[in-house]
Structures are given as C-alpha cells and as structure tokens.
C-alpha cells in the first residue's frame, strides 16, 4: 500500500470516529428512550441478573472460609472488577453477538456498501443501554469492596483501580469480537461464541487459583482472562501471587488490552475477507 494511501486511511478513520459514530449511537439511544418504563425495567432486570452471581459467591462463602486462598471480601473484589469490565464490554460490543443474523438477512452486505468499517458499523447498529444495569451492579460491588478492603492506597494503585476495569472491558471485548468472528466461517458459530462470552463472565469472576494448571495457563497466556480481574486485584491488594507469577503481570492489563485489540482486529479482518471470498 502506498504511503499516501495509508495516511488517507488513518485520516478517514479519525474523521469517521470524530463525526459519524457518535451520531449513529445517539440515534440508537434516542430510539430506546422512547419507551422509558420498559427501558427502566430492562435496566433493573440486568442489574438483578448481574447481582445474582454475587449472591452465589456469598452463599459459597457460608460453607468455606477461603476460595483458592482468597477471603470472601477479596473474591468479591475480583468479582466486582470482572462484572464492571463485563458490563462495559457488553455495553460497547454486545451487538457483535448478532453477526450471524446480519449475515443471514443480508444486512452485512449493506454494511459492506457503506464507506465505513464493518465492525464499527455492527457495534453501533444497536447500543442496548439496558446493559447499563450490569455496569451499575458491577461498579457498585467494585466501589464497595475498594472502600471496605484494607487497601494501601498509592498513586499507582489509584491509577490501577481506575484503569483495570477499562482495560478488562477492552480485553473481554476483543475476546468476544474474535470469538464471534467464527460466524464468518461457520453457519452455527453462535454457540461457540456464546460459550466464550458467558464463559468469560463466569471464569474471570474467581481467582484463577481455583482452576487446574492447564486452565490457568490458558487464561494467562492464550485467552487473557486472568488480566481482566485476577491480576489487577492482586495489584490492588498488594499480595504476592500465590502461584509465584511475577508482580509485573499485575500491572500489565493495559498492555495486554492493546495486544488483544490488535489480535481481534486481525481475526475480524480475516473473517471479512473470508466472507467476501465465500459469500452467504
């Protein structure tokens, strides 16, 4: 690709993000607020849905005093980080789940006919604000545990507390985008993608010490779930890793997030190329 071409693309991307998507998203939001009561009920339902998992954790702790070497309050912190990240990811890229529908109805072709990238178009095609309920539930738990836990607050830890849920959301989003891109290859890719999406919600809510060694390795190095909540939680708590992994990992979620985005982008691009090569 010629250099000028490339510069053009970057400029286009910038202008695109700067002007179009906020308008598209705003139009989506407006249409949802048209029915305020049903919207409010949806938010509450999502809030409750997310909170039930917290209850599960609390019930478990009525039987045991520690889980994988972590106290109830510490596991709740991990849960809070994971739930906030999940909620934010769900809010921003949850629409990627609908890819099979867009492909089947031919709406994906319509996206290819617009002078915009397919992924941003798909993500902005519907922004389900009801998912704010999930974010609220996660954020509530996170703030509560940050306040009640005896955390030795340093500037670095404060930064970590703010950045970790965001980086976690980016990591989860990338995982889902990559997982849902299988629909470009498989007609029935939805099942696989859902297992990644909802599996990631469950598995990142607990300390990875409760998993077997293989699952742990996968979550650290292949599918970076451990960076969503587990490692940042260790950093916040100031605990050395019970598995003896280096402390650096506790601070590297933002870096992992950047790599995850690049990986997901690559998978998506390859998927679109494949789609154009096979057709519906």
């Amino acid at each position, binding site marked *: 690709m010629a250099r000028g071409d490339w510069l053009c693309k970057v400029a*286009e991307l910038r*202008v695109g993000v700067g*002007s*179009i998507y906020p*308008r*598209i998203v705003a*139009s989506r939001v407006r*249409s949802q607020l048209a029915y305020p009561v049903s919207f409010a009920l949806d938010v509450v339902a999502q809030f409750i849905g997310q909170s039930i998992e917290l209850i599960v954790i609390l019930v478990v702790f009525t039987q045991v005093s520690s889980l994988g070497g972590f106290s109830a309050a510490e596991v709740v912190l991990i849960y809070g980080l994971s739930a906030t990240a999940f909620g934010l990811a769900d809010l921003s890229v949850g629409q990627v789940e609908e890819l099979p529908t867009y492909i089947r*109805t*031919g*709406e994906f*072709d*319509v996206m*290819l*006919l*617009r*002078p*915009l*990238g397919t992924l941003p178009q798909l993500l902005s095609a519907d922004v389900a604000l009801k998912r704010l309920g999930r974010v609220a539930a996660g954020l509530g738990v996170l703030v509560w545990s940050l306040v009640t836990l005896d955390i030795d607050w340093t500037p670095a830890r404060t930064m970590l507390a703010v950045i970790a849920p965001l980086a976690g959301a980016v990591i989860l989003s990338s995982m889902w985008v990559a997982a849902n891109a299988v629909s470009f290859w498989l007609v029935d890719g939805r099942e696989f993608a859902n297992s990644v999406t909802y599996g990631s919600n469950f598995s990142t809510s607990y300390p990875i010490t409760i998993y077997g060694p293989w699952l742990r390795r996968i979550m650290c190095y292949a599918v970076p779930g451990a960076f969503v909540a587990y490692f940042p939680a260790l950093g916040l708590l100031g605990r050395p890793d019970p598995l003896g992994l280096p402390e650096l990992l506790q601070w590297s979620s933002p870096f992992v997030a950047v790599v995850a985005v690049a990986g997901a982008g690559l998978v998506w691009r390859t998927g679109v*190329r494949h789609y*154009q*090569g*096979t*057709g519906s």
Partner: protein
Amino acid sequence: MIIETEALRRDFLVGTRLRRRRVTAVEDVTVSVARGEAVGFLGPNGAGKSTTIKMLTGVLVPTSGRASVCGLDPVRRRRELARRIGVVFGQRSQLWWDLPLRDSFDLHAAIHRVPATRYRDRVDECVALLDMASFLGTPVRQLSLGQRMRGEVTAALLHAPELLVLDEPTIGLDLTSKERLRSFLSEVNARGEVTLLLTTHDLPDVERLCRRVVVIDQGRVLVDDELAALRQGFAGHRVLVVELVEPVPPLLGLGGVVDVTVEAQGLRQRLEFSPGATTAAELIGTVAQQVALRDVSVVEPSIEDLVRTLYYSR
C-alpha cells in the same frame, strides 16, 4: 468506461463439509458500461445477476477475472468506491428501520460527508419529485413498501453517486409506485449525472429506463445489445386477452394471430399475435366486430419468455 469487467467468474462451495460441491454462479461475464448509460441487466432467477452486482460493488471477491468500477478495484477499494456509487436492493434496506425517514437521510448524508447545502437541495428535490413530504417524519418500519423504496432511492442518490445500481427496485410495488419510480429514475439519468445499472424481472422497467440490455443466463452473457434491436429480433409474441360476455368458439383465423387458447369455458380467450404483423388496437377492433367484449388486456412477454426465446434461438 464506468464499469469494465473481463471474464468475471464466481464459484460457490455448497453443501456440507463432507459433500462439497462447486457451483458456478457467474461463469464468464465481460461487459463495459459507459458513463451516463442506462443498462438493464436481465436474466431468469439464478442467472447470476445478483452475484455479478455483488462483485461490482465490492461485497464479493471474484473467483477469477477482473472488475473495475469507477476505475477502482471494487473489493480492494471498497470504501472509496462506496462513496462514489449508490446501491439499492429491492429486498433489503439501507435505511434505519426505527428512525424517521428524514433522520435516516441525515445519517446517510453524514456517513457520506455530503456538504450541508448540497444535501438540503438534494433532499428537497427528491422529496418534491417523489412526493415524500407526507411521510418524511414516519419511522421507516411503518412505511409502505412503495414509500420505503422511494426513500431507498433518495438515500442512494444523496451523495451524488456516479453510478446507481438497482437490484429489483420495483419488486412488489403497485403500478402507481412503479411508474413514479421509473419516471424519477429516467429523469435523473437523462440529466446525465448518474449511470444506471438495473436488474429487474419487469420488462416495462427496462423499456422505460434502458436503451441497452445485457441478458445473462447460467452465468454467461447471452445478449448485449440495444433494446430496440433486441425487440425487433426476439421480442416474441404479445398476447391479447379478451373477456367475453358469453362463451364463443375459439376466435381462429384473425390476421397476425398465431395461437389461440380458450379459458374459463370459452369466456376468456388468449390471442397470441406477433407485433410485426398487427397491432393490439387493430386486433381489438377486429375482435369487437365479431363478438361482445366485456374487457381486454394486453400481456407483454415477460423477461423469462424473452430469455427463453433468446436461448432457444441460438
């Protein structure tokens, strides 16, 4: 040339992983379209029209061959091409179903970065020509098909595309809606601003809009000619359908009539005649002298008939 293709071919793999079959949707399509032309792209279902259009618009990669639209490789420069062409699919929408039509236009114009003043003029003009003022504020999902299609065509023209591709734009529309759309498209094309490429099953669409037709069948170009020439050679027979007041024996021996079919116990007769030998008016006159008529209609040969005639005449 705004469209140029060379031996365009497209295969699909169908079936399950174990029993894969290679199906050729488009086998060999070489066409070129000059700026300002209006070309009808015809063929029976499954002939490869839609697949060809998808290759021209960057949705699908050709298996082999070459396509160039507005001087661009459609797939590699998809986004750039999208700014310069407009595409209307009769069966799927590019509008936002939950937004009022006007808001859909606004978004579309923003996506294509149409300057505000030009956008206003363009919308106002289309609204006037297509008589859309009464439903501009209606959400797209509540529009009738005819209203929606007018919206689709307007959206596709907002960014002043060099080429407008229409895939079955009049499918499912009533006669009035069809006519309105046709006269609008014909006017837009006549101004020389936009090249038209349309697929349709509706011969009147083609007659009204296109000087030239490209007929494809089984993925190959069967005919590429001026419509007039095609009509002369192959138009086939028209059919005069007469509804009678009372049953009569078959109306045989009329000048120019090549075949008579009797339906509804003799109350309806279909007189197939060749347009070169007689005219519909002449034939109606002759029939009216012989029997009492309740109603008459003239059936044009369908695209399928035309293609079939073409096919067997080779």
